[in-house]
């Protein structure tokens, strides 16, 4: 049980809220590269309605949705060689929010010089467009390894999930759910579908788990049945990258699950994959982007694969999980540690300090730890993850199989 007040403190992300102020100290993916075009699009981040566009000069801009003039939406607008022109009366703004033109005003008017649209800085990295909504000066955009490797293939899946971001993040420090939600429940669904072989890898029982706060967030370690503390699942582990990502994968396959709070009750989930076989991957002309479907043809939640099972668990906890009615046990220590870490970092920001994972110095790459032989075998994990995660919707799935050359597993 967590008090109603503390639950609110950890889950409200809008401007002026304690968590909202913490989260505004970070760069957030606001879009995939293909969304920033000459056609302005509506985006939502941390409770703020925004418009993203790419003008004729290639500059990407992110403005508050409402035009400062008569408050019409700026997605009802046209991109010009420089800036975005409101569709209602033609006021034009650049990516810094400066008003460049007010066609209806007298030619000698200086009115435009006193008008500013709310604008936020954006940067492109690794096929994503990142935005910063916090106070100046903005920190450096963290160049995490997966975003900058030049010898890896990538693809990016995404979906909007109708629930608060925190319950999704908590899943990343809840190792036991793997053997139950994906191991037992996933196998149960296979049984109902007439398949009598359980899924491998995810059915392994946890013997021991540990969580350690470190410079990048929380490092998660586990020992599975039949394994020892000499295995990489324990010796190396993998991180929850504070405040918004999980790093998961095995040798050659490294992924981020990025949880972007749109508002208190909706999260844009990004599955960011890299494929880097030994010796590197050949050049990739463009990073494919795909939407991850949530429902089957009957309108039921898709849950016959790992990410679908996670999604249904998160969403069914409620739009904002009511933690005043939960009953945590000792197996939930990772969840508690994460909540405490958020509370501590909120306090840091309220004291005027930079929170964890704020980077002020320019850097080339930030390397993150991750086990190579996950759950005992990199090949087995890759065989599973490329088939039973959201990668199954990737338009380059077959090319990925060929890139690694792993044998087709018997359980398929």
């Amino acid at each position, binding site marked *: *049980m*967590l*008090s109603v*007040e*503390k639950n609110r*403190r950890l889950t409200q992300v809008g401007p002026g809220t*304690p968590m909202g102020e913490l989260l505004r100290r970070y760069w957030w993916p606001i879009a995939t590269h293909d969304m920033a075009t000459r056609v302005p699009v509506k985006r939502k981040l941390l409770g703020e309605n925004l418009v993203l566009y790419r003008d004729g000069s290639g500059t990407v801009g992110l403005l508050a949705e409402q035009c400062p003039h008569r408050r019409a939406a700026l997605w009802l607008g046209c991109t010009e060689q420089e800036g975005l022109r409101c569709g209602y009366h033609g006021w034009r703004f650049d990516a810094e929010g400066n008003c460049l033109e007010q066609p209806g005003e007298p030619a000698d008017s200086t009115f435009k010089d006193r008008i500013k649209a709310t604008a936020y800085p954006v940067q492109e990295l690794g096929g994503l467009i990142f935005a910063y909504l916090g106070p100046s000066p903005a920190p450096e955009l963290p160049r995490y390894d997966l975003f900058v490797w030049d010898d890896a293939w990538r693809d990016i899946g995404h979906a909007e999930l109708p629930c608060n971001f925190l319950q999704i993040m908590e899943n990343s420090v809840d190792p036991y759910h793997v053997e139950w939600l994906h191991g037992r429940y996933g196998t149960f669904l296979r049984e109902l579908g007439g398949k009598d072989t359980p899924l491998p890898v995810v059915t392994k029982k946890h013997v021991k788990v540990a969580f350690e706060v470190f410079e990048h967030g929380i490092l998660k370690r586990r020992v599975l049945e039949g394994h020892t503390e000499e295995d990489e699942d324990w010796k190396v582990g993998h991180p929850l990258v504070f405040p918004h990502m999980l790093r998961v994968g095995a040798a050659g396959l490294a992924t981020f699950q990025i949880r972007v709070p749109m508002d208190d009750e909706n999260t844009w989930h990004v599955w960011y994959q890299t494929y880097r076989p030994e010796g590197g991957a050949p050049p990739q002309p463009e990073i494919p982007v795909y939407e991850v479907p949530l429902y089957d043809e009957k309108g039921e939640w898709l849950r016959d694969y790992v990410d679908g099972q996670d999604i249904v668990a998160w969403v069914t906890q409620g739009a904002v999980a009511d933690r005043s009615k939960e*009953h*945590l*046990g*000792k197996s*939930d*220590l990772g969840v*508690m540690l994460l*909540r*405490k870490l958020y*509370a*501590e970092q*909120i*306090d840091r920001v*309220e004291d005027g300090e930079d929170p964890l994972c704020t980077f002020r110095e320019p850097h080339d790459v930030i390397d993150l730890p991750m086990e190579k032989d996950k759950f005992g075998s990199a090949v087995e994990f890759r065989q599973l993850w490329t088939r039973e995660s959201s990668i199954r919707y990737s338009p380059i799935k077959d090319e990925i199989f060929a890139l690694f050359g792993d044998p087709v597993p018997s359980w398929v």
Partner: protein
Amino acid sequence: MSRRAGPIGAAFCPGCGAALDDPAAFVQEFWVGADRHFLCWCVRCELLCTVVIAAQLVSHEPEH
């Protein structure tokens, strides 16, 4: 609200005595068997600790 172990469980920091019902403090209830535990983080002294409200006190006397 009562300062006894009630809905918020641990009312004061065992380290410095600051009130743990401060919005910025963190108090999380969890259960270990029949024992009610509270993971507490004090915003004033930054102590992280667990307060246990035990169903039963079990101890033993050393040999003598």
